[in-house]
């Protein structure tokens, strides 16, 4: 029942990407060309990462259950209820999508209702099965399979071609696919990058680190160099930032769990994983002043307080710091970003975040909903995501990822992205706070192997149902 895992495919893609990057370096590049090359590499990588799901597509050909959804006539009168989460989709983009949709369906009202990520699972579990269900809803890419497996979403296998088909970023398609059928339409992606203060690095006489060890050392050096600033973190690493922890685990050759013939086997307490987590503990204790039991949601405020040298966060983090919620103008000139370097000098593996859209199985207008989804995955709409620090889900648009350093760093980081165990039960691991608990304990100085072992057995229990 378990779907194949993305991580197995990723390393090979990373190699290609690294090679591509090497090429660029030797050609002596202009900024634009570099971007271009990075983007091309990105396409290559994400395409390669997909090889695991080719079989799925082959098996889906003709829809063997249910009829294909048909586009309703243009004069249809209806209301579409769309749930989008958090502030990731700006109002302007929503307006754009509505305007676009109104050209085809002038008599349809689209009501976009913003949901908060906190408490989302409760709402989805209780509201989606009711008569008054939203027509379209968004879930995190790590939660998607749980709702696909439950039968909460309409099967869109037959419509996949119209939604972007092979142009869709494969790892997000993977999250949207359960048991060979396609349910969750990729909406946007996000890779994780390092955001740093150029002035502090200069002051400490440091270069941008090119290996993971250099990164850790730079963090410690920064902290020492700024010892006069209270609460200063060379590397801001709160105990609950498990997304960042994954990079260190993967870089050391470890993993959370692997699928062996349909049975999940824990890898978190393997020697490799423990090595990675030991590095994490080293950073948390020696380069960091963030609380052991908080997450990275408000790191930008500490950054704005001048208490952070480097932090690991999503691609939009830089925009948050320079934006209205952060401290516009304060650090704009000294802000930089790079992809976390791996211990071998390449790009360290990082977690690919993102979200998927589904049509509720209880929707009264699935055909119409599908038409709206087509707008949301269209090139015009997806191009907008590229501009706000998120990764568009169309490979053909990845070379649009341009502009600031953060976008470039993100494109680089995206070369080597990996994913959590691809299981319908993964969402339960997240809601059980297991990795967060482990991080908090590790940050507080607990024995790494003990904590990893405990987390591993809890995770394996959940994954294997």
């Amino acid at each position, binding site marked *: 029942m378990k779907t194949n895992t993305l991580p197995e495919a990723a390393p090979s893609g990373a190699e290609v990407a690294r090679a591509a990057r090497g090429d660029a370096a030797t050609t002596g590049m202009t900024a634009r060309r570099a971007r271009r090359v990075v983007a091309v590499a990105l396409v290559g990588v994400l395409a390669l990462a997909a090889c695991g799901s080719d079989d799925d597509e082959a098996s889906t050909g003709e829809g063997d259950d249910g009829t294909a959804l048909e586009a309703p006539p243009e004069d249809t009168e209806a209301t579409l209820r769309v749930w989008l989460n958090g502030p990731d989709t700006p109002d302007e983009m929503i307006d754009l999508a509505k305007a676009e949709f109104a050209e085809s369906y002038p008599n349809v009202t689209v009501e976009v209702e913003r949901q908060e990520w906190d408490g989302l699972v409760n709402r989805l579990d209780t509201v989606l099965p009711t008569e008054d269900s939203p027509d379209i809803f968004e879930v995190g890419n790590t939660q998607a399979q749980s709702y696909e497996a*439950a039968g909460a979403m309409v099967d869109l296998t037959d419509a996949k071609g119209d939604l972007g088909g092979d142009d869709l970023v494969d790892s997000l398609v993977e999250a949207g696919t359960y048991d060979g059928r396609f349910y969750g339409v990729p909406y946007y992606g996000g890779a994780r990058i390092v955001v740093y203060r150029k002035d502090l690095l200069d002051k400490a006489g440091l270069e941008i680190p090119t290996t993971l060890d250099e990164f850790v050392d730079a963090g410690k050096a920064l902290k020492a160099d700024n010892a006069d600033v209270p609460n200063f973190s060379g590397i801001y690493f709160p105990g609950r930032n498990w997304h960042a922890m994954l990079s260190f685990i993967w870089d050391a050759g470890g993993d959370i769990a692997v699928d062996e013939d349909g049975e999940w086997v824990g890898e978190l307490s393997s020697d490799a994983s423990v090595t990675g987590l030991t590095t994490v503990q080293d950073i948390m204790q020696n380069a960091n002043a963030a609380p052991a039991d908080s997450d990275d949601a408000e790191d930008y405020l500490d950054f704005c307080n001048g208490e952070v040298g480097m932090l690991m966060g999503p691609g939009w983090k830089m925009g948050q710091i320079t934006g209205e919620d952060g401290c516009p103008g304060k650090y704009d000139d000294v802000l930089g970003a790079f992809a976390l370097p791996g211990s071998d000098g390449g790009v360290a593996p990082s977690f690919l975040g993102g979200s998927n859209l589904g049509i509720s199985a209880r929707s009264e207008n699935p055909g119409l909903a599908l038409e709206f989804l087509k707008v949301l995955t269209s090139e015009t709409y997806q191009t907008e995501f590229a501009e706000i620090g998120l990764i568009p889900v169309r490979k053909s648009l990845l070379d649009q990822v341009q502009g600031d350093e953060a976008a470039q760093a993100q494109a680089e980081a995206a070369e080597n992205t990996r994913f959590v165990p691809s299981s319908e039960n993964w969402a*339960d691991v997240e809601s059980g*706070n*297991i990795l967060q*608990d482990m991080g908090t304990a590790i940050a507080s100085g607990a024995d790494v192997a003990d904590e990893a072992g405990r987390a591993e057995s809890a995770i394996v229990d959940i994954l294997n149902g």
Partner: protein
Amino acid sequence: MTAVVPGEGTAASPALPGRRSRRSRRGSPAGAPPPARRRSGRLLPYLLVVPTLVALGAGLGYPLVRLVVISTQEFGRRQQFGAPARYVGTDNYDSIFGTSYFWDVLWRSLAFCGVNVVLTLVLGTLLALLLTRLGPGMRTALSVALLLAWATPALTATIVWQWIFDARYGVVNWVLTRLGADYQGHSWLSEPLSFFFVGTLVVVWMGVPFVAFTLYAGMTQISPEVMEAAAIDGAGPWQRFRDVTWPALLPIFVVLAALSTLWDLRVFTQVYVLQQAGGIVRETNTLGVYAYRQGGSGDFGLGAAVAVVMVGITLLLTLVYLRRMFRQEEL
């Protein structure tokens, strides 16, 4: 909904009138005829109870029945979305009692509940005594302060307390550091013991006003003459409390203890919000939060079973109170 703001005991006085009724019953030996002798309308009491039963049935009837049914089923997200549910007998219960983790949670909840109930009652009593010692102006001022704590939503209150104890910017760490202790960046929530210290502060802070007001009202009932007589007999303040006040307040006390136990055992909001803010979930789960997290992680069957077990435990804990009630009601 009571569970959502548990420990937030609110009604002015469930206990006080209960006590009065008992006393008036006792106090009218030959007076009022027992209710059973009334013959005007056998049906009337039933008619009077019907609206309550209908309201309870409408809002909770089906959910309560379904809770018990689901607790015997394999009921996950698939079932929630329409897949047929399979009966698994006592499997869910077995897996609750079979895991050592449940027992951890249970003992933790009992300890947390016990400490909170005792503290709430003791502090409530002291505050009630304090209220009787104050002049009218001061008494009103103190009452208003108590009202503030009482009326604040549990969610808000917990967020504010969490903010007060915030590792980086909390006022507590700020003050302690000023006083010379090294509390710069100290995380109060990451250690289970200090996590529950904060939790107890919130729960007790919200629970004390209810107890204090109720007991204060009870104390004002004790006739001053009795107190004066005791004083003239040479009884000191402690003796007067022990011999006069305490016995008179005992019935109220029992009800308050029962209600506090009920509320504090399934405390949810306070613990959950603090967990979101920090702390290690595994080491700070209490029964209410545990049941909720089982459901939240898609295992509704197990969540339901935990809830049923909780009802059982609450029944056991309030047995003393229930027996008291039975004895009185079956006169």
